[in-house]
């Protein structure tokens, strides 16, 4: 047995697992990306990213084109929103963001079916300055498309005192069901690598790792074959990693590849690393080479639908449209999740529009079981990739004893859900932790 990078062995028991192994269920992995039918109406929330919501620039009955800015960035940590169809603004309504769960404005645009684009002019990144590239990235509305939706232009400008030596391209896709990144690597590998190249230029680092789990050998092969062909500057390698959830979490990923640990409460940039999702890199490529703003993404529609597919869908398309395009949901479906089954967010309606961070629409049957007493079996401790004691949190949260939570490093939790997945007592540990984290953050503010 080869020892994996960054894993430690203990004397008596098998190595601490640092995660769990949910069944992959990558049902759509063999399906090429197809364009989803143009929606007749899109609902575009103005807060599809972490940070300040965008400010609406359009009003009722305005005519818009595809790619036209309908809302400008609301601050430095914010990005503009573009129309994803051509047509007329129908109204501005209030919605709960499917990704950030905040209530905010959303622009409803009725499509005229013509799909007319604004003029997009691409450029060669070699002729552009760093500032130009950053401006273009921001204007294109790029955010981290792995699900965290952090504005990309902010990530591309690490503070001066934190030199970056490596960029890790996250193609792990450790969540079950989702295959959007895998298909993107197979079909748009060149764009991803060119996007990486742009990123390495902007950040000024020479080392790029492309991290892919070994349950996607086709993607590993495709990327490995592409690298010598493109003759990109810098040193870019493909890292084939043993499949394990949550390897795609940036902190576990960079520990596995580089053996570094991000300090508690820190970011990957604190140890000289930037982690970027493959979809984001493709978007960077499109924004620079084609001048195209971010209006669509690959969404895996999977679970109990007739025919799981990978769709190139415009933002604002209602999930029910996509499900319908996949032949509809099977009769016992009673739950729809945006994202993967481990960290995704359950939606209240099939009509929820997909957004920048929506990598998957998962239709499934709810299988929640009743919570029973903790028997202190320690399974959660073994499953936790952050070496925490998840079982300690529920009691303190229930008793509102929030100050103690800090002693158990609750803020270090990445909310991956491994502990809850393996808990024999069906305790929703992550849920308790999320409540506890919010309360601890409040305590911090009070002080």
């Amino acid at each position, binding site marked *: 047995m080869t020892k994996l990078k960054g894993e430690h062995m203990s004397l008596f028991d098998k190595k601490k697992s640092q995660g769990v192994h949910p069944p992959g269920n990558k049902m759509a992995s063999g399906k090429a990306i197809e364009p989803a039918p143009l929606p007749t109406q899109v609902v575009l929330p103005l807060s599809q990213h972490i940070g300040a919501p965008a400010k609406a620039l359009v009003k009722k009955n305005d005519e818009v084109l595809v790619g036209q800015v309908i809302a400008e960035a609301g601050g430095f940590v914010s990005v503009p929103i573009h129309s994803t169809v051509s047509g007329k603004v129908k109204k501005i309504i209030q919605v709960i963001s499917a990704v950030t769960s905040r209530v905010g404005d959303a622009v409803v645009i009725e499509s005229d079916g013509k799909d007319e684009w604004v003029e997009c002019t691409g450029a060669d990144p070699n002729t552009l300055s760093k500032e130009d590239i950053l401006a273009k990235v921001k204007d294109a509305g790029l955010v981290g498309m792995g699900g965290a939706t952090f504005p990309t232009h902010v990530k591309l400008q690490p503070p001066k005192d934190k030199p970056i030596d490596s960029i890790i391209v996250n193609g792990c896709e450790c969540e079950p069901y989702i295959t959007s990144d895998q298909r993107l690597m197979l079909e748009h590998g060149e764009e991803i690598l060119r996007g990486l190249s742009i990123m390495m230029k902007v950040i000024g680092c020479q080392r790029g790792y492309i991290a892919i789990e070994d349950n996607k050998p086709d993607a590993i092969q495709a990327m490995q074959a592409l690298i010598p062909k493109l003759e990109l500057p810098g040193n870019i390698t493909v890292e084939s990693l043993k499949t394990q959830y949550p390897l795609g979490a940036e902190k576990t990923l960079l520990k596995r590849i580089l053996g570094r640990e991000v300090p508690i409460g820190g970011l990957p940039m604190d140890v000289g690393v930037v982690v970027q999702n493959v979809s984001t890199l493709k978007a960077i490529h499109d924004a620079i080479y084609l001048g195209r703003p971010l209006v669509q993404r690959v969404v895996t529609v999977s679970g109990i639908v007739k025919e799981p597919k990978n769709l190139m869908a415009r933002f604002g398309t209602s999930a029910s449209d996509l499900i319908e395009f996949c032949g509809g949901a099977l009769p016992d479906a009673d739950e729809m999740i945006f994202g993967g089954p481990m960290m995704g967010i359950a939606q209240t309606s099939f009509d929820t529009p997909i957004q920048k961070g929506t990598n998957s629409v998962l239709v499934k049957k709810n299988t929640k079981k009743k919570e029973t007493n903790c028997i202190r079996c320690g399974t959660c401790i073994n499953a936790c990739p952050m070496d925490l004691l998840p079982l300690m949190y529920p009691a303190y949260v229930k008793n509102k004893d929030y100050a103690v939570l800090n002693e158990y490093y609750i803020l270090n939790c990445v909310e991956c859900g491994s502990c809850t997945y393996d808990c024999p007592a069906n305790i929703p540990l992550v849920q308790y932790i*999320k409540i506890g984290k919010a309360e601890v953050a409040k305590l911090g503010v009070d002080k």
Partner: protein
Amino acid sequence: MSPEEINNADVADIKTDAQNNSSSGAINNSGEAVKSADGAINVPESAAKNQEGAINAPIEAIKSTGEAIKKLLKVSPAPHVHGHRDTNKVMFIVMLALLFPTAGGIYFFGLYSLFVVLVAVITAVLTEMVSKLLRKREFIMDYSAVITGLLFALILPPRIPLWAVAIGSAFAIAIVKEAFGGLGHNVFNPALAGRAFLAVSFAGMMTKWVAPVSSMTADAVSAATPLGENFVQTGTTQALYNDLFMGNVAGCIGETSALLILIGGMLLFIPGIIKRVIPVVFIGTVFLLTWLLPGEDPIFHVLAGGLLLGAFFMATDYVTAPLTTKGQIVFAFGAGLMVVLIRVFGSMPEGVAFSILLMNAFTPLIDRYTRPKPYGFIAPTKEEKKKEKEEADAKAKKEVEDAIAADEAKQEVA
């Protein structure tokens, strides 16, 4: 809540709770959110219909893609999938594993042992039912009471009166387990504590031992346990080892046969229910210490008495053992040390039960000092530690001074 009661805000709350971001909705309703974990919340159709476009696009806009799409969705917190692990399954396998030593006990000590086992198990389950009723909690048949009953019976002398079995079993469940909050909250191993209770209450009957019987119905002949002072070794050492290994010696119902306990232990190892560390360190410590002590036979000490049963089935009890591997090593070493001290230097012939109970009491302390260092933990430097200590001292000092000042102010007013 009925559909009528739900208005926009409620739907928003439900959604925020379920999605548990750090916005205020989730926190104000933290109690709700915790509750919601039991089962998914249904969002009533009427509520969604009433508010045109307020939450999501109106429900009329749903395309007619069949029944499923019109159905209401359930919202529950992530993760939305669950592994195969289940408390009931774990308990069931432990119960199966325990049946090996139980069967051995009935074989070696006659049919009466079966009655002891039955009385212990039935009393345990009934006591649990009654306790749950008194505590107004739901009774769940999760085999944990069965395991307590079984374990308790296995560490009793073969000819103990059945009424004593019932008293001990009821004590184990009602006082040691349920009074502390039920499954997962007990400080001591209930079966061991039940035995300790009987040992101090009815010392006489707890030290009456019989020789293994040749047939199921034969009369019992009193005999000394191998660890007892009156025990006389008749054959060769090799023959004694054989008897100890097979279980052909006097002792508690389930502790005599090393072979059957090992088979049961393997049943727990293979699916990963217990970790190796506690039995290995516990037995290893006893072996090593008795090997170092002059005049003691380490193999005899490992095979005789309740060490194997205790090491595999009692010390490994999740609830009363430390959480981390480091803590478990400390725990098992402490228990091993206590066993040797009691057996070799103490007044009692056997000490497995008391040594495990003693270490149970230390478990919270061990847990406190063996917390794992989390990912990204950077140990504070000496200077930082010193500073932290100074700050804490200053704070404590200030608190005391404040309290004194407040006290004085009070007295002045008075």
